[in-house]
């Protein structure tokens, strides 16, 4: 690892109580405070424990397949104003996305805390599959909460989790999607906290989850920074990532935050457009509030009731965003823009056809953003984009969207 890489603990953010400026913190029931304190304290110890680091690094190398590649995408770049586009290949990790980085770390932490049962939420199923995988590997009992709507939309991932030995609980209250799965997981946790760890899947939630999950994904940007220096001899002009809850983006950004010459860009799910009621762009189209344990940007009505989110990508379909992103947005260090469903799907197809890589629809939002960024930077520009996951899980959605199943496809037959 390059010695100039900043320290992942970055103890100044958040503060001791989990605040990123005015954001973050811990808006959670008193009953969970002891458990949250335990996770925070154990992580402080673990991350400075060479034995723990060695065990996690060995898993990341021998099980996940790290370091992930940095792949140049020249044919895709022709559609990005000629700027050089470098793909950080988190899609090549075991289980097919960046999610495994966080999950392996927290599963080790679970064992370190002497707990035997893990619960987690999942939307599209990526975090659920990764969690079920880590629990199978480490012999932990595993329960995954998933909105009933999502269990129908992602039936194959439900089967995958069950194959891995996890119990999948469909959540049939509220809007029956990711946010309700999180509510239900919190309800389970408060009743079973004695033996259970809530393996939270993104950089949201009460302290210490935003910092813990960021730290476990720090490796993404740390590797990319070193790889881009090796490849191009300089730092990139921009690092781009999609943002739902924001874990892959925090992982990609964190190592670059001190490099003030590197522009950081988060692309939110704009759905039908942020001026409509159907999107999931919390920063671009929401307002500060408190949700799922943290102060952050939230899609909410006049009275603070959470509004339903929409995105073609289930992994970005969440009405809030991690609090560190909220703080980075207000501070101006990261620029957040919204990408519509249509723009994301166009980029999804473009990468597939120009590079032979089918991205996750989540990651396709970042790719769509890069097309715009590349045009702004011009041919001298170097852009690293986090390809957070692979698109196997999205083939059904894409087949329907592009009309690929019945009459074949001709490249122009959007049927959305």
């Amino acid at each position, binding site marked *: 690892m390059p010695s100039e890489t900043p320290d992942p603990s970055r103890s100044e953010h958040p503060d001791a109580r989990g605040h990123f400026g005015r954001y973050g913190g811990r808006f959670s029931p008193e009953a969970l405070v002891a458990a949250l304190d335990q996770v925070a304290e154990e992580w402080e110890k673990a991350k400075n424990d060479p034995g723990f680091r060695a065990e996690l690094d060995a898993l990341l190398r021998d099980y996940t397949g790290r370091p992930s590649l940095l792949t140049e995408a020249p044919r895709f770049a022709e559609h990005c104003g000629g700027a050089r586009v470098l793909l950080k290949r988190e899609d090549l990790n075991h289980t097919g996305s960046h999610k495994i980085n966080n999950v392996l770390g927290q599963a080790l932490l679970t064992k370190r805390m002497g707990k035997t049962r893990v619960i987690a939420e999942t939307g599209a199923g990526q975090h659920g599959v990764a969690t079920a995988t880590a629990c199978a590997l480490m012999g932990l009992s595993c329960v995954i909460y998933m909105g009933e709507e999502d269990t129908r939309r992602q039936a194959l991932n439900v089967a995958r989790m069950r194959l891995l030995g996890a119990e999948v609980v469909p959540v049939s209250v509220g809007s029956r999607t990711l946010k309700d799965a999180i509510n239900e997981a919190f309800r389970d946790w408060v009743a079973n906290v004695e033996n259970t760890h809530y393996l939270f899947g993104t950089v949201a939630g009460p302290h210490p989850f935003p910092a813990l999950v960021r730290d476990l994904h720090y490796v993404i940007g740390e590797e990319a920074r070193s790889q881009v220096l090796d490849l191009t001899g300089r730092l990139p002009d921009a690092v781009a990532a999609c943002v739902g809850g924001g874990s892959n983006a925090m992982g990609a950004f964190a190592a670059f935050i001190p490099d003030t010459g590197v522009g950081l860009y988060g692309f939110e799910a704009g759905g039908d457009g942020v001026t409509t009621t159907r999107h999931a762009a919390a920063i671009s189209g929401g307002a500060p509030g408190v*949700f799922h344990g943290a102060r952050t940007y939230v899609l909410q009505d006049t009275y603070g009731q959470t509004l339903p989110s929409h995105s073609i990508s289930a992994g970005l379909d969440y009405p809030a965003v991690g609090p560190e992103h909220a703080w980075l947005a207000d501070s101006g260090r990261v620029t957040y823009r919204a990408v519509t469903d249509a723009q994301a799907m166009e980029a999804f197809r473009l990468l597939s056809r120009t590079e032979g890589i089918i991205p996750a629809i989540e990651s396709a939002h970042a790719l769509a953003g890069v097309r715009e960024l590349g045009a702004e930077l011009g041919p001298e520009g170097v852009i690293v984009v986090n390809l957070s996951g692979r698109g196997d899980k999205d083939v059904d959605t894409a087949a329907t969207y592009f009309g690929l199943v019945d009459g074949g496809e001709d490249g122009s037959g959007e049927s959305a």
Partner: protein
Amino acid sequence: MSQTTLQAALARTKADGRAALIGYLPAGFPDPDSSIKVIEAMVEGGCDVVEVGLPYSDPTMDGPTIQRAADTALAAGTTPPDVLRVVEATAATGAAALVMTYWNPVERYGPDRFCADLAAAGGAGAITPDLIPEEADEWLAATDAAGLDRVFLVAPSSSDERLRLTARASRGFVYAASLMGVTGTRAQVSGTAEKLVARTRDAIGDGGGLPVCVGLGISNRSQAAEVAAYADGVIAGAGFCQRVLDAPDLETGISAVRSFAEELALGVRAGRS
């Protein structure tokens, strides 16, 4: 600061040598006007204090019964102004009215404005289940300015240090969660409740006099009596909601709610006899 209606109610029941009966119902359940009628029945049946719930889209501390009640209230279009109207009607019954609310609706409304409007409606204060004292600076200032009570929660998992912190921040009473879990009726009251109340009284210290009330899982007369033996107040919520949900019509539901309150009222009076 003059005594709030909540403080007066708890002083009165203490003088009577019994625990207070505290009932919970979401405002707007099953609709705003009907919720007022249900609350009136709760008071007629013997509730000394009513927690008027502000229905919220993401109630992570509530079990299925109160979730359903809150969803019904939201579907009926209940807003914070409706909640304040229900508070006003509750206060008019003579019972002390407290709002029970997750934090975001208050933050969105503006804590100062919320407290001013709540005080104007005759409310005594509010319970905030997802706000811990460390995050409550604005809330402490707003409730102080309006002279309102603010009730924080303690749980069996709370350390002695946190019990002291929470007790210091609370006014009106301290809400002791009887068990580790969400709202809802239980077959038995957890054995951890009595110990938690004792630990909380130790944290409050001599001469503090801050009452400790117990909630979560209390669903019949004998449980109410059991808790009333050691707590200053007995809190029941899901049992009221369940009776309205189970009833074929509002009239029947209201009558079942009144009977349930009467049953619990006998329990809190039997607790120390």
